């Protein structure tokens, strides 16, 4: 440590594992504009050309370039891999070849086999033998234990996308720790923790001791991984290049071991800035080189791949990996965390072109420097690749200034806290239980007991609401049971030892539930309350359609009469979830988020009282239903801003699409208006905003000529995708959404 100690201002971080303290003591907040930034070097461009060629092969080959069917991926099981070694300043690939995908069968062997056969390949006999006959997987464990009730909820679409046959992800390792401390120091700290975990030997204590022991082994493996690439990770990083490299190695270890749905990076940019700033001041690197480190790092992050079966695409479309990097925000002491490297990260969207990954997330605070706000706005207008989250709101509510964004929109304090991913439940379909005596409206199966038949087919608000509450209570109960099972088994059979080795021992846990269909529910209840709604039933007595007489206010028009219904239902369901006991005493949180499952949810949900026909896609996340927001973009934003973050601590996703012209007549005005909008939206305690600035015609053209738009990126619920990687149905759904246009 001696060298590093001299480089930086000493404090608590020298005595304990405390990256936050290091950042606070050494950060150089930057107020200037983007004029210092450099374009890509020749090396970077050559490397990126190779990557682009590989991506093209991947696209031409059914979305997968190649798969290793022999080696089970662990932290150090693959040999070193390069794009082109002599050009690479930051090294490391998940496997020994660019875009070659690896098997991680601990989530479930059947899934791996299916993913391979869909590509015309076979898992090796040895691996099949091991995982079919000897090793047990997460998927095996969950299905051993699932109740009939959970299975029913799952197959009928009340619960969707549960992480029971894929890895749960969501955990963010503090990848900065490897750079700041090196493996040896981290192992010492974990050994000390283990020594302190003594009797009595309760279930919890035994489990924790085993976990820490696994983490220590993982740290040893990460050191080996470094050696494959000729890197000595046992010691801290001593230069900017090493710091970037070390952080990447830590992240690489995680994505070699796990294929979690979302595996965020955390908030590394301003940490790395400290090393870059040091080297720049010392004169050992130039700005061009600094940018090159970041470009190459980001390039590597763009090359992360997981082996998925085709069905996975329904819920998480476009092959996402959620390498979410949280940029910006402010410190508790009032300073902001914008550094030159915040700019450098966003600059990669120009140097390498637009891209969905890493999932660039700006933590927006009213007090961020205007120069940075303007730059973000310009990057959004140019690339549609950024999402924004309300730092003022999260910092106040969660009391932390060192957090990342797990997956799409969820707060996670780095190194102190983790999350159990909970997918989501369908609250619109749940509403139909209230109207159908507790039976599923599509299958007729009894789902919830104790719901009285309605007194009349002309719907009465109070009666429906009373029934709805009964239904929600049972759905919450079954949902909670499934979560406890899943996370128990995931810990047991597919524990994230590499990531957890970079998190404090025994961290706080959030159990991240989610809901879908909120706008449908709000509009349906509004219709029942403010208009006359009559149920049309089939011979089985199940609702098939609704006849609506009269007008009713729709969510998305800044009208309290309906917006409050959305607020009430989400709060009510959150409170139900909060009342239920959880595995490892995780604290329940809830998101209003759909990823791309809003399409599948729509397919699995019958006609609803708002006039939506059976099968029609839901709006994504907390968005108003397409075309129902009649008063323009701001009224729509105002409606979403009313949802209460305290009752949806896992996040409230809003996707905003606008045609460039609607932001104003010229470039300066557009940039300024977007900044004003963001400041205003977040001043209303709204949580999240995806910003797309695109013309619908462009997307239509991309549908017809995908080859011409390999990097066209569009934000969907909480992440970004390559538009051309979406299925046609999903593309149509995106195009059908409200594109705010005031022309």
């Amino acid at each position, binding site marked *: 440590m001696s060298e590093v100690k001299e480089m930086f201002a000493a404090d608590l971080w020298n005595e304990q594992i405390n990256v936050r303290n290091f950042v606070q003591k050494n950060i150089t907040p930057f107020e200037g504009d983007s004029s210092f930034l450099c374009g890509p070097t020749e090396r970077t461009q050559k490397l990126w050309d190779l990557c682009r060629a590989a991506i093209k092969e991947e696209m031409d080959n059914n979305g997968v370039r190649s798969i290793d069917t022999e080696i089970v991926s662990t932290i150090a099981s693959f040999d070193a891999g390069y794009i082109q070694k002599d050009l690479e300043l930051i090294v490391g690939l998940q496997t020994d070849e660019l875009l070659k995908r690896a098997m991680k069968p601990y989530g479930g062997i059947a899934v791996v086999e299916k993913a391979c056969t869909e590509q015309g390949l076979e898992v090796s006999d040895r691996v099949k033998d091991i995982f079919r006959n000897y090793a047990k997987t997460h998927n095996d464990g969950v299905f051993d234990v699932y109740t009939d009730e959970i299975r029913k909820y799952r197959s009928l679409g009340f619960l969707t996308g549960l992480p029971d046959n894929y890895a749960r992800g969501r955990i963010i390792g503090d990848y900065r720790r490897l750079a700041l401390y090196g493996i040896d120091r981290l192992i010492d700290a974990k050994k000390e923790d283990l020594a302190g975990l003594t009797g009595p030997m309760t279930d919890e204590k035994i489990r924790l001791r085993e976990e820490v022991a696994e983490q220590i082994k993982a740290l040893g493996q990460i050191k080996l991984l470094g050696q494959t690439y000729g890197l000595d990770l046992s010691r801290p990083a001593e230069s900017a290049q090493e710091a970037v490299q070390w952080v990447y190695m830590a992240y690489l270890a995680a994505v070699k071991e796990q294929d979690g749905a979302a595996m965020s990076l955390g908030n590394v940019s301003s940490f790395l800035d400290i090393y870059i700033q040091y080297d720049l001041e010392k004169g050992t690197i130039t700005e061009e080189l600094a940018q090159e480190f970041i470009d190459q790092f980001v390039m590597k992050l763009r090359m992360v791949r997981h082996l998925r079966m085709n069905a996975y695409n329904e819920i998480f479309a476009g092959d996402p990996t959620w390498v979410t990097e949280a940029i910006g925000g402010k410190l508790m002491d009032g300073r902001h965390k914008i550094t030159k490297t915040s700019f450098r990260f966003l600059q990669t969207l120009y140097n390498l072109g637009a891209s969905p990954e890493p999932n660039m997330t700006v933590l927006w605070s009213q007090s961020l420097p205007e120069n940075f706000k303007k730059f973000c706005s310009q990057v959004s207008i140019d690339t549609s690749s950024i999402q924004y989250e309300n730092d003022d709101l999260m910092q106040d509510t969660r009391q932390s200034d060192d957090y990342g964004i797990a997956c799409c929109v969820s707060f996670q304090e780095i190194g102190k806290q983790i999350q159990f991913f909970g997918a989501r439940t369908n609250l619109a379909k749940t509403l139909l239980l209230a109207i159908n005596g507790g039976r599923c409206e599509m299958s007729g199966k009894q789902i919830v007991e104790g719901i009285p038949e309605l007194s009349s087919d002309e719907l009465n608000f109070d009666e429906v609401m009373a029934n709805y509450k009964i239904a929600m209570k049972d759905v919450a109960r079954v949902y909670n049971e499934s979560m406890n099972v899943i996370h128990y088994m995931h810990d047991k059979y597919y524990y994230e030892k590499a990531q957890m080795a970079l998190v404090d021992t025994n961290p706080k846990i959030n159990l991240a539930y989610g809901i879908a269909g909120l706008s449908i529910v709000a509009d349906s209840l509004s219709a029942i309350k403010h208009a006359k709604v009559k149920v049309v039933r089939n011979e089985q007595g199940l609702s098939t359609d609704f006849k609506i007489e009269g007008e009713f206010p729709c969510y998305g028009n*800044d009208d309290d009469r309906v917006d409050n219904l959305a607020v009430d239902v989400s709060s009510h369901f959150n409170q139900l979830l909060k009342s239920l006991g959880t595995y490892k005493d995780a604290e329940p949180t809830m998101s209003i988020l759909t990823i791309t499952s809003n399409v599948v949810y729509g397919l699995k949900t019958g006609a609803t009282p708002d006039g939506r026909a059976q099968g029609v896609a839901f709006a994504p996340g907390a968005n108003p239903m397409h075309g129902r927001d*009649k*008063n*323009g*973009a*701001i*009224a*729509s*934003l*105002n409606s979403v801003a009313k949802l209460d973050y305290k009752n949806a601590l896992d996040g409230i996703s809003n996707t905003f699409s*606008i045609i460039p012209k*609607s*932001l*104003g*007549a*010229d470039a300066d*005005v557009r940039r300024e*208006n977007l900044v*004003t*909008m963001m*400041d*205003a*939206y977040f*001043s*209303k305690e709204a949580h999240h905003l995806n910003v797309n600035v695109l013309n619908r015609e462009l997307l239509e053209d991309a549908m017809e000529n995908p080859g011409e738009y390999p990097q066209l990126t569009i934000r969907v619920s909480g992440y970004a995708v390559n538009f051309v990687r979406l299925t046609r149905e999903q593309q149509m759904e995106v195009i059908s959404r409200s594109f*705010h246009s*005031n*022309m």
Partner: protein
Amino acid sequence: MLRVHSFESLGTYDGPGIRLVAFLQGCNFKCLYCANPDTIELKGGKETSAEEIVAMAKNQKPFFGKKGGLTFSGGEPLVQAKELIPVVKALKSEGFHVCIDTNGSILNDFVKELMQYVDIVLMDIKHMDNTKHNKLVGKNNDRTLAFAQYLNEINKAVWLRYVLVPGYSDGVDDLHTLGKHFSTHENIEKLEIQPYHHLGSHKYEHMGWKYELEGVPSNTPEQLDSAYNILKDYFKQVIIN
């Protein structure tokens, strides 16, 4: 009560900053290119109170930023000048910035009172040549010119707006006449050239009206540039909207 056709909460073309635009029902003109023909009919619209509009404005206040506010457009908002007075007064007392987007053809005592409370008048001038004005609008341009004169006298801030219809209002001489006429009006802060578009034409079909400008193309960038170059010598600022 104001009769409102519709609202646009993200108005970025009708005055400074981000604006809540209220499109009022009813117009005394019938321009060939009107993009909102459904607002022309004098009857109809949703009765909306001053309180409702003030409440909406308050909800949107943060979005207005330092420059934005409300704009009353239409239709022709001054058809409802009398009803607008209490609304605009209430908005001004809450500190909102207010614009009126008008064809300038109505000047009565209500309008004169209203003008005391309005921050900027966005005034459309359809054509300087009376015959051509008549052809485009169905009315003479004398009232609009008189209104502009009045605004000049009371020194009210004006953004002049001119729709550039190829073959109808983009003649070089006509543009010079426009410039010359207004170059002495110190109250005019800028001239906005509004490119012609036929985005409203489908509405005509829907309403069973004939779209008389069928076949008139949008402006080419060259046409916009040449109009800009002519007009920029006469006004403090010229922008292409």
